[in-house]
Structure formats: C-alpha cells, structure tokens
C-alpha cells in the first residue's frame, strides 16, 4: 500500500514561540488508513493537523524543518487552496467554520465550490450526494447560524467533503458537542473511512480511539512518543508516564494480568475486555 501521508523528521516552531510546537515527527499513513493522534493538551496535535492541511507553514509564520507530504507532494510547495482539494479539515469550534456568507445550509455547503468556480448544476449534484450520508437533507433550507452545534459541525464536515478530498483531518471536532452529536459525527467519519477515505483524527475519547483507529500516534510536548497499531501503542506501559491517557479497556486487561487474574494481550474493545473479565471470573 502507498503512503498517502508521509511525515519526515518534521519540526516546527511558531514565530513568537520559545519552543518547538512539534519536533522530529516521523510517520506514514497508508491510503484508507485511520490515524488517531492522542496526547495531552499542548502536545502539538493541532500543529500537526495544521501542517497536514498546509496552514503550517502558509498561514502560521514560523520556522520548520523536515517535510510533510500528502499524496506524494510536499505541503510546503502547494497553496492552501490546492491542498484543500485533497485534504478536508474540520476543527473544534463549529461556529468558526461557517463562512458567514450563507443564508442557507445548501449555500454554506457550496461555498468552497463557488470559490473554485464550479458551476451551479455541479454544486446541486454534489450537495445531493453528500446531504444523505451527513443527514442534512431536512436542513438544506435552514439558516446555518440557527442550527445546533452538532448540526453545524455536520455542515462544516459537509462543506469540506464536498470538495471530494482523499484525506480528512479532524482536530477535536467533537469536543464541544454532546455525546449524541459527537457519536453522529463519528459514525459518519467511520463510514467514510470504510469507503476508502483516509482519516486523521485528534480525539480525547480513548475508548473510541481504540475501537476504530488502525494507527495511533502519541505525542507529548511536541515529541512523538509512540506510533503504531493501537495494540502496540497502548500495549506500551510507559505511555501513561508521558501524560497520555489510555483506554479503560487496556487498563482493565493490564491490571488483570498484573494481578494474575487473566493474561493475554491488551484488550481494545468492550467485547474483548468483557470476555477477559469473564475469563478472570472463571466463566
């Protein structure tokens, strides 16, 4: 499999910052992969996301080293608009992801297409295409500013998906939503990934990370402390020392093992973990 994202010894320091936001990041994600980036606040997760969509170094000034390649091309050599055709980006605050030029959700979805000069017929076609999977059919004529946070976040997701990107970068996009709203977004993203979209997601819900990621990148204070499959990353007992949270499922299986109640590799899902507990109970 080809690597769709290739980060090669990448470091970056913002202009006015004393220290590097990220240092020596080095990893690859295959096409269709699902990468979750985890780590405490201030560990450089957002900087990495910004680098994947070209906001670093084109929008944020600073000094960098190494390279970030998406679809084989260096991000630094393209414009943000070019990159955004390949990489969709959704971030935390729903209200800041509206264009503020649209009176209806349909217009909001079509905003990026309009800037690329796409004719209206094509806009209508693409809106029809994405409204279904994003559950936006009933909202197309509503004013986006009057929607709930979860709904706006779906609109924001839609307005990037409409460009048909091959990579989707989600920077804590469910943090400000309630559980139901974030689950909805999450199910959509999971479905997109199953259909072949490469996803990079920053998330605080470790159980969710363990459930769906096929790659996990753990950062701490800008350093890459672990990269690999969830089993590898969460299986490493040293991870918590870096301030990185781990899924409770992992904690349970590890404690069971330490107490000599049930052994085996770390468990990552509710089912596997329950089975392990069952084993410990002697069932």
């Amino acid at each position, binding site marked *: 499999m080809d690597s769709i994202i290739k980060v090669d010894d990448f470091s970056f320091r913002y202009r006015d910052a004393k220290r590097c936001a990220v240092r020596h990041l080095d990893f690859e994600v295959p096409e269709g992969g699902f990468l979750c980036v985890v780590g405490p606040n201030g560990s450089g997760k957002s900087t990495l996301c910004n680098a994947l969509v070209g906001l670093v170094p084109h929008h944020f000034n600073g000094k960098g080293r190494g390279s970030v390649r998406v679809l084989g091309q260096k991000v630094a050599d393209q*414009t943000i608009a070019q990159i955004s055709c390949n990489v969709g980006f959704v971030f935390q605050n729903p209200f800041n992801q509206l264009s503020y*030029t649209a009176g209806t959700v349909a217009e909001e979805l079509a905003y990026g297409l309009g800037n690329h000069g796409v004719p209206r017929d094509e806009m209508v076609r693409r809106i029809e295409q994405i409204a279904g999977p994003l559950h936006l059919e009933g909202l197309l004529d509503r004013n986006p500013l009057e929607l709930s946070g979860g709904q706006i976040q779906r609109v924001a997701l839609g307005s990037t998906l409409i460009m048909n990107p091959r990579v989707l970068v989600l920077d804590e996009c469910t943090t400000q939503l309630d559980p139901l709203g974030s689950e909805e977004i999450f199910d959509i993203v999971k479905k997109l990934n199953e259909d072949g979209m490469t996803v990079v997601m920053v998330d605080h819900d470790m159980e969710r990370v363990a459930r769906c990621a096929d790659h996990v990148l753990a950062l701490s204070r800008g350093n890459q402390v672990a990269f690999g499959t969830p089993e590898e990353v969460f299986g490493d007992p040293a991870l918590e020392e870096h301030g990185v949270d781990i899924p409770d499922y992992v904690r349970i299986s590890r404690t069971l093992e330490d107490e000599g109640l049930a052994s085996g590799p770390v468990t990552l899902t509710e089912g596997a973990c329950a089975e392990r507990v069952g084993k410990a109970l002697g069932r």
Partner: protein
Amino acid sequence: MSQRPVADDTARDAWLVALNPTAKVASVLVLGLASIVFPSPILGALIVVALFALAAAMGYFRPFAKLMIGFGIPVTLMLLLIQGCYSPQNVTVIADLGFARLGLEGTLYALSTVVTLLTFLGGFYLMNRTTYTGELVADLTERGLPPKAGYLVLASLNVVPQMKRRMATIQEAQVARGLDMGGDIISRVRATVPLLGPVVMSSLADAEERSMMLETHGFHLNERAHTSYVVVRHATADKPLVIASAVVLVLSVAARIASVAGVLPL
C-alpha cells in the same frame, strides 16, 4: 434583510420578490435621485404616494405606514421649524407663529428634503422586505463586484445576530460574577468594558480560526470567476422598471434645468 423570502408564487408580494435584486436597488436609487433633482417636492410626494400604494398592494401597508409616519412626522416638524423659520433664503412669509415667521422658500426646502428621505426610506424598505441579500450579492458579483467585497457585506450582516446572542451570554456570565448593571451613570459606563471586552477578545481569537476556514475553502482563488449556489432571479419587468425610473430622472433633470433657466415657474 438576511431573511430568505420563501419562494411562494401565490404570495401577494411574489411579483416584487421575483424582480432582479439589482434592478430593484437601481430603481430605488434612481427614483430617489430624481426626487432630489426635481425642483419641487411634488415629484417626491408622488413617489411616496406610489410607494404607499405599492406597499398596500403587496400586503405590507401597516408596517410600512408605521415606519413612514414614525419617521416622517418628527423630521417634518423639525425641518419646518429649522428651515421654514430660520432659513436664510426665506423671503416670502406665509405665516406668523409668534416666536418666528414661516417662510415659503424654507418650507419648500424642508418639504423637498422630507419627501426625498421618505422616498429612500420607503423604497429601501420594500426592497429589503422582498430581496434576499445573498441573491443581491450574488447578482452584483456576477456583474463584477469583487468576491471579497461581497464577503464583507454578507459577513457583516450575518455576524451581528450571533454577536448579540454572545453578548447576552456574556451579560449572564458577568452578572454571575457580581457585575452590577444598575447604579449611577458612572458605574453603568464602567460596566461596558466587562460586557464588550470579552466580545472583542473572543472575536479576535475567532478571527484567526475564521480566516483559516476561508483559506482552506479557497477564498483567495481568483483565477476563475467565483460562482454561487444562489439563483439570481430575472423578470421581464426588470428592464421596464429601470427604464421608467431612468426616464423620471431624465425628466427631473430637464425640469431642474428649465427651472434654473427660468422657463418653468417652480
């Protein structure tokens, strides 16, 4: 005016809604200009009457009348006092109010100003009620307005309701911290900073993310003309409307010239 009018063909104002937005704006501007140029308040008064009739036909008579009268009466009284009594151009006295004398020239000037103001007020009101701003901007962009100017107009309009909501939340948050919004005038003036400060600070932080959003959505692209999802309406009545307005303007200019030349006794 950000409200999108529902495209309802059976509504009484469907005809006005269906007109091209730029044609509507142009007509209002041209008619207003005509009312300024025409050498007597009569034209403006006629236009105002016509606007009342139009508003009644469209089903907006009540709010329209409320707006026009609410603005018109105080401004008329004020101008009649200021210009009618104290205009340096006053020569012909038409009434003696005791404390001052009402002059014909000043009165005519005051009335001209009032009808012109009412023409613009009424014209814009009807335009706003029946025009979706997004459509107007889309239309103007098609006609050559830079997309960034369009952004400024629409974003300014859309940001206000959200800011008002935010201000209400900030008020709650500050009162919960013991901010007293009553009290004497000085303490109330002081209270503006806790209320406005968070709006400004958080807006500056938001500006960062919003500009990121614009950049990732191709805001800066200008190799190709930007397109819009909004359908710009065109009606057969557009051209006649604009032409008719233009004719009125031309006639007004002619009337003004004639009046200056002394041909027309106005």
